[in-house]
């Protein structure tokens, strides 16, 4: 139950985030190696939606918009939204403000799972494909390892940071295993690194269709868990005296957040810090209730990633920077600032 004031705040945050998302998306599809004028981009988009408004782009540029820019921006938005909402969910379920799919080992696990299947298994994308399934299993293994390791370490005295340390260790190991697997087969070293550091350059409409079903299921589940996560904030024991079953909530949220992570990683590689930066900013804007944090993180994550992707392909144009580099440039100092403010010591 959101109090009336909190609801107004949530409404404002959603409206602001949607506005930013639309603006960033328009910039994302317009700016690039070939700059497309905003008004004509809007005209073209309207035309493709069956409306007749404004002047559309000429043929070639329209093709650039539809075949390259749009799927890329949409995929960036989807990946960013998934990572952000997964990060917020992990933070809620572990009651740890520093949890993030990348720092928890989920992303690295998904990467290893996907790589193993691509290299050695029957690699099939799309709904019920082996790649997303393997990424999902990998993500669960990653989080599971980090959680188990973190729990063991916490018994020897350790706070919030213990889980993260465990996650870092798991990530390092799984990433090494993933690199090994990929090197064993790969002929193209550059591509390997590009994928590990996060890459949205291969986006096509098909890619989007491949992940959308998984993303939809994961997001629907997570958005439905907002109220439960709010109750879980008072601790497992008190939550259960309020009629919530903490183990069940935790299971559903972990599965769904790992599915979200896996779908993002399967198409984009490892992109860190999005799940950390976005929910923290969102909490400042929309309050701490997960019923606000989760949906606003989804939108904000999308906007953040579209912006990072735009930077990654323009800053060194004509060559492209992996988007993970851009998110790390933003995210790592942010993470350091959080440590300083005292995020984990509470």
């Amino acid at each position: 139950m959101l109090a009336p004031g909190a609801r107004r705040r949530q409404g404002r945050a959603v409206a602001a985030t949607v506005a930013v998302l639309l603006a960033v998306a328009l910039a994302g599809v317009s700016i690039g190696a070939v700059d497309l004028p905003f008004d004509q981009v809007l005209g073209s988009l309207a035309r493709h939606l069956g409306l007749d408004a404004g002047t559309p782009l000429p043929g070639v540029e329209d093709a650039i918009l539809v075949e390259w820019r749009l799927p890329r921006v949409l995929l960036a938005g989807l990946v960013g939204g998934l990572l952000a909402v997964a990060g917020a969910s992990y933070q809620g379920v572990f009651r740890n403000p520093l949890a993030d799919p990348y720092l928890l080992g989920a992303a690295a696990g998904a990467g290893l799972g996907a790589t193993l299947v691509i290299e050695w298994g029957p690699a099939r994308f799309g709904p019920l494909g082996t790649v997303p399934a393997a990424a999902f299993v990998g993500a669960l293994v990653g989080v599971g390892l980090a959680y188990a390791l973190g729990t063991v370490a916490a018994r020897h005295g350790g706070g919030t940071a213990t889980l993260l340390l465990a996650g870092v260790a798991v990530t390092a190991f799984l990433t090494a295993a993933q690199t090994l697997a990929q090197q064993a087969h790969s002929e193209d070293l550059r591509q390997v690194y590009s994928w590990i550091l996060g890459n949205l350059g291969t986006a096509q409409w098909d890619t989007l269709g491949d992940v959308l079903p998984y993303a939809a299921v994961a997001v629907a589940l997570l958005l439905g868990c907002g109220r439960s996560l709010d109750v879980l904030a008072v601790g497992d024991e008190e939550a259960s005296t309020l009629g919530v079953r903490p183990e069940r909530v935790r299971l559903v949220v972990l599965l769904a957040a790992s599915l979200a992570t896996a779908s993002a990683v399967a198409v984009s590689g490892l992109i860190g810090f999005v799940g950390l930066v976005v929910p923290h900013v969102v909490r400042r804007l929309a309050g701490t209730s997960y019923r606000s944090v989760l949906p606003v993180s989804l939108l904000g994550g999308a906007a953040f990633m579209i912006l990072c992707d735009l930077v990654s392909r323009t800053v060194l144009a004509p060559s492209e920077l992996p988007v993970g580099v851009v998110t790390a440039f933003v995210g790592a100092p942010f993470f350091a600032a959080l440590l300083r403010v005292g995020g984990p010591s509470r």
Partner: protein
Amino acid sequence: MSAGRLEVTGVSVVLGRAAVLRDVDLTAEPGTWTGVVGPNGAGKSTLLRAVAGLVRHGGRVLLDGREVARMDARHRATRIGYAPQVPVLPEGVTVREYVHLGRTPYRSLVPIAGLSRRGGPVPSGPGGAAPRVADDRAVVERALRRLDLDGLATRSLRTLSGGERQRAVLARALAQEPQVLLLDEPTTALDLGHAQQLLELVDTLRAEEGLTVVSTLHDLTLAGEYAQHLVLLAAGRVVAAGPPGEVLTEASLAAHYGARAEVTAGPDGVRVVPVRRRSAARVR
């Protein structure tokens, strides 16, 4: 609505290899206050947690004849409110939002979407008809008023003083509209004045709402003055039970607390005054 008669029979709890509670019996009538007292480590909190359904236990805990351990978690939450000794206070949550958590068992946990304006109806519940959002608000506002928190409703929980926090926790439990209120050391963090104010408040709620209150209390004088019925635990067993005057005797305090104390009858119950041997010897 059912009455809230609590009947604990033969409850045992084993944690690890240690038997924390052995064969504990306790009966709490509706609208009464039962105090659980005993030395450190006697199992007071564990007994409360067993009644709340938080620890696995042998024996039976019956609420109006129904076994608490077999109740659906949500149904149980509409009947039993529990305030732990050290509540977890979430960050960035206002007092009103916190008290709203008490309405959780009446709300759907899976709304259609995270942004939905109102949760769905309650599928199960003792009252039959599903309460609406407006009812939730009314209950919460009433709980805030009852605990004198109206002025603090929009304050962040973490900025409250110890006494205010305890009141907020109590308001949350009250928002559950329970018949039984379990309070684990509600006065631990409070000075004498605030402790008395809080216990007076609980006593008023007990009398006016007909709540069955079961609380652990380490302060024996407060226990002797507020509870109508005391259960003295020692090493996991009930060693004495009954009206405060019968339970808190100089002999029982010596035997089970290893304490030297004078017990005197006051107008509101029993007062326990610790006595230092040296000064006692000088007086006599």
